[in-house]
């Protein structure tokens, strides 16, 4: 693969990864934490429901996992496509 094709494929893979990550990002916060809370109201957590937990704890924990997963995955992509810093 030429360098140009390689960076195009790299960018495409990156954009796909970003899109999926943002779907999860929106799902746990705007979804579970706010809009879908009534749907989750049957699942009780410590005196309240799962949506409340997502709004005050769960979404933050998922955000953390997302960022570290993305960093790990991108470092691998950098190497696979030969576009890393070294």
């Amino acid at each position, binding site marked *: 693969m030429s360098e140009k094709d390689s960076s195009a494929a790299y960018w495409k893979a990156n954009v796909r990864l970003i899109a999926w990550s943002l779907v999860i990002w929106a799902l746990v916060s705007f979804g579970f934490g*706010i809009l879908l809370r009534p749907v989750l109201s049957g699942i009780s*957590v*410590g005196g309240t429901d799962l949506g409340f937990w997502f*709004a005050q704890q769960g979404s*933050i924990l998922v955000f953390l996992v997302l*960022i570290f997963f993305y960093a790990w995955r991108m470092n691998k992509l*950098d190497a696979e496509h030969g*576009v*890393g810093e070294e």
Partner: protein
Amino acid sequence: MDQFIINLIFVGASFALYIGIAVWARAGSTSEFYAAGRGVHPITNGMATGADWMSAASFISMAGLIAFVGYDNSTFLMGWTGGYVLLALLLAPYLRKFGKFTVSEFIGDRYYSKTARLVAVICLIVASTTYVIGQMTGVGVAFGRFLEVDNTTGLIIGALVVFAYAVFGGMKGVTYTQVAQYIVLILAYTIPAIFISLQLTGNPIPGLGLFGEHTASGEPLLAKLDQIVTDLGFKEYTAHHSNTLNMVLFTLSLMIGTAGLPHVIMRFFTVPRVSDARWSAGWTLVFIALLYLTAPAVGAMARLNITDLMWPEGTESQAVSVEQIQTDPEYQWMLTWQKTGLLGWEDKNDDGRIQYYNDASEEMQARAEEEGWVGNELTNFNRDILVLANPEIANLPAWVIGLVAAGGLAAALSTAAGLLLAISSAVSHDLIKGHFVPGISEKGELLSARIAMALAIVVASYLGLNPPGFAAQTVALAFGLAAASIFPALMMGIFWKKINNSGAVAGMLAGLVVTLVYIFLHKGWFFIPDTNQFSDADPLLGPIKSTSFGAIGAAVNFLVAYIVASMTKETPQEIKDLVESVRVPKGAGDASAGH
């Protein structure tokens, strides 16, 4: 030992530490002043960014806003953490690859336009100055309590300290100082929370205690809280009461704004490599999450404790007596905070007791009539005092109270200093050197940076005396402004080659102006009180409050940029190549200050 002396020791010792570090790492050259060389490890950088980020809004104000509203204010928690996902995925690695020092330099180069850079600088200054106003409100509360003076005096003294502190060193001094500040502020936030969580639930982790069992009643803590607040006519704590659309837009504004704030983004220019910029965002969120996962527990538990203190024999029985407030050491905090003018009570019906309840609730009006109450008697409880008063409310040891005083000051100072640095670099580096006087000497540039700092703090302190809201609410406005102006220009610059100079300039201006006007219509023109035409209780556009408008401003920005770019001249090839190169980490060198 007197509590005042203990506070003085804690605050004094922590300040001595910060100043010591600042002197040890004093900035020499201009490039050190802005970006501290490039030797900052992602974990160190994460802590420093955490301290920079967690300001008076997060530390002093946020838990109080959650405590008195409940679930609906979870927006602050999701908004101020979720933005880091956007930052890590959409901006940080590319801006680091680009390799300059400031956000406006990126915009100027990417949009091959001095006008674009100028507009970006103006957007940064508007958002940062609004942010500093919120900080000054928090500084006033913290210094007022600590020095046991009224709020205004506290604010003026605080402003002088912030200024002296920010002038002392550039970011190099600030980076290591901020690591120390992070440690002080996170201990100050979590230690009292752990104590209180143990007292109420037996669980040492506040975030778990929040969903645990209230030991005294054997019920889940949140169920108990729901019950006692509804007993007093307040809204159920865990339920959803506010408008859903406004909640979503507000959360989104805070998230986008996080990824558009210069003093946070600047931090990601200072890591050694592109991959470090990705990790750095993660580490920053780890250190921030320690506070954000604790904050909702602090809020809920404080609300429970306050209600217990006001109704020591239960909400169905007699309220606390005036005599008890004045003599019982457990109520000493109320007397201390009364001095700041931020807490007040009045025995309206002269029954020797202070009834705290929601006098707007119909059910409570029936009970009030029966018992001879004539209105809520806890007449003033400023939300911004809750976190600082929390250890005293829970009757914790004196050293914990001293630690919290030191932490509150650290939070307010560190962010105010970081913002002043961003404002001063925007003025001296981008406006004066980059636009008006390109030939200015290094000395002249440093001098103009300091003059800009002084002006910013004077304006912010003046407006901070009559703030447009509690600290966190004012800060939320700043996020709305950053969301509407900076973030879309940065994101489109990386992800969309088609956006050209005219598109970006039109987009930023449209986003900034429409958001600023919407905020001024509701909060007063230039935040001057009583010049507003609408109020957030009854906003211009249906349920959309001025604090939530940033998300709409961002949408306007994207749309205008798209339309204008498609009608004007295409982006030149060398800019397309620049965008290509920003997208891959390969070849990232050190950043350079000039052109």
